[in-house]
């Protein structure tokens, strides 16, 4: 069945009560569905929360893929467009995200809330990087380039954190942060700077 109504109802519950439903049972009563039907979609509230994050991401990606201009973009621009739209998307659920923030921001332990999103994001980035090899925007480096995804994940977390704390008008500082972060990352992975850093690192560690 379609999981979207469950996600929406769950978000609404949070917005109205500021906490988790006491049990799946009470939550299902409000939704007028059976508990069994809920478990068909989600095994627990944790799974549901993870899926909400994944859904934010997937919705963004779907919108992007429909967009004609997006198709014409280079890899760096694609990633920029993704972040801008993602943040727009998150904006509609800002209250929910702020209510939940301690769960995924503060202690690294709770990052598991973003797990499903992370896996989907990694797939997306891997694809972008592969395209980047072809356009020359990303330089292929043995062993190292497989690690790029982790870097971009940290970047996504940075953007998220920045946006959560952003109090500028229209979240314009987040826009600036995205622009700068993405430009920096692409300059690093396309130019020789990174090679020089690696070379230097290797030199320092192998010298003695």
């Amino acid at each position, binding site marked *: 069945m379609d999981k979207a109504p469950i996600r929406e109802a769950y978000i609404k519950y949070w917005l109205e009560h500021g906490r988790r439903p006491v049990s799946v049972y009470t939550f299902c009563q409000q939704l007028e569905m059976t508990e069994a039907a809920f478990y068909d979609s989600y095994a627990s509230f944790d799974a549901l929360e993870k899926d909400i994050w994944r859904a934010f991401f997937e919705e963004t990606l779907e919108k992007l893929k429909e967009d004609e*201009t997006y198709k014409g973009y280079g890899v760096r*621009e694609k990633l920029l*467009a993704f972040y801008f739209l993602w943040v727009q998307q998150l904006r509609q659920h800002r209250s929910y995200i702020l209510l939940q923030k301690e769960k995924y921001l503060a202690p690294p332990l709770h990052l598991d809330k973003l797990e499903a999103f992370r896996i989907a994001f990694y797939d997306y980035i891997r694809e972008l990087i592969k395209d980047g090899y072809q356009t020359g925007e990303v330089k292929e480096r043995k062993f190292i380039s497989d690690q790029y995804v982790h870097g971009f994940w940290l970047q996504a977390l940075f953007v998220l954190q920045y946006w959560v704390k952003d109090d500028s008008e*229209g979240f314009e*500082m987040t*826009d600036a942060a995205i*622009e*700068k972060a993405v*430009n920096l990352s*692409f300059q690093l992975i396309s130019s020789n700077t990174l090679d020089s850093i690696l070379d230097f690192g290797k030199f320092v560690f192998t010298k003695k």
Partner: protein
Amino acid sequence: MKEQTNIPTGKVERATRFVATGVKVGANYLKHYTKKLIDPSTRREELHADNAEDIYDTLSNLKGSALKVAQMLSMDKGMLPKAYTERFAMSQYSAPPLSGPLVVNTFMKTLGKSPAQLFDSFDMQAANAASIGQVHKARKWGKELAVKIQYPGVANSVRSDLRIIKPFAIRIVGMNEVDMDKYFDEIEGKLLEETDYKLELRRSMEVSAECAHIPNLVFPVYYPELSSDKIITMDWLQGLHLKEFLARRPTQEARDKIGQALWDFYQFQVHALKRVHADPHPGNFLMREDGTVGVFDFGCIKEIPQEFYVNYFLLTNKEVLKDEARRREIYTNLEMIHPSDTEREIEFFSGLFQKMIDMLTLPFTREEFDFGDEAYFAGIYEYMDHLYNLKEVRESKVARGSRHSLYVNRTYFGLYSILSELKARVITSEARIADLTNG
């Protein structure tokens, strides 16, 4: 794509690009000021080598007085080597590009539609950079349009930049903090105004309507329905920036006409409107060979208070200045003489002011003035240099000059420097100014 494959090469170029977009808080800054703190004597050379021209521009304005005007003028020619000056001028119209997605995002956020939806065509590649954003070329209604887009978060970075440079600036200029505050307020206010595109749009429309009658000036039509607080849409103006224009070897007649138009434009604003386009850098004018000049970018407008206006222009009145007591009164009103000055200091500084004012107001006392007169400018630069090297001037810790003089002076020096580059012969008589003001 093209924007990002060429990373700007030279260190200075890269840094100027950063400065130009408001990403000013960088290593260059800190390095620059730290160096200066450690070794103040390296001042000018260090400045050339490093890239804080924008800040230097701000800083050199800080004492704001007629004396410190020396440094302001130097921005154009005097103390800084010519090559460097040219690079600085260029930096005013070449900033790092906003990415395509950011442009689209800005449209979506502030106008609710993408550029493709709003215009018949929209060039994603920026045509050139504005001071805090960039200009794109677009087409709609069969017309070519210029669309100026602001970099996000500029207002924030202006504030934080000023906070960062303030303590350094105080040390470098050697002024006391209270005096410095009045200039900082003025600068911060003006810089913040420049980030307000709604205000700029309104002013642009007002000023261009009020100045429409001045011959040979061309103003673009503005389109409020295609503008927001981050976007301004106006007609695309044809023409060349000063440097390129001069490279085409325009006739003396064309240069005179443009010079006259600019002179009239500024006199009319100052004397009739009492508010002035206070940013006369070459990037804001587009010149054509038929002697017309396009004017845009009204982000920086200085409103001139009546009281300041009266005193300031009394300085151009030879009769008034002959009266010693009266003169002192004017100097005091303009805060060029500080309350803490001793009689000897008053004497000393008054003498310096007088000489400089005589030199600078020379065009006003003539019927016609040839701004191509190199001896005239050479004389000014020489005197400025002389002033700058005077021990008394360098060691004076007080601020000289009212906060309003900061931008009014800057305006006049900007105008003079453009006219001098143009080598224009301009009718500067009072009668012409009076005609403009009353007509």
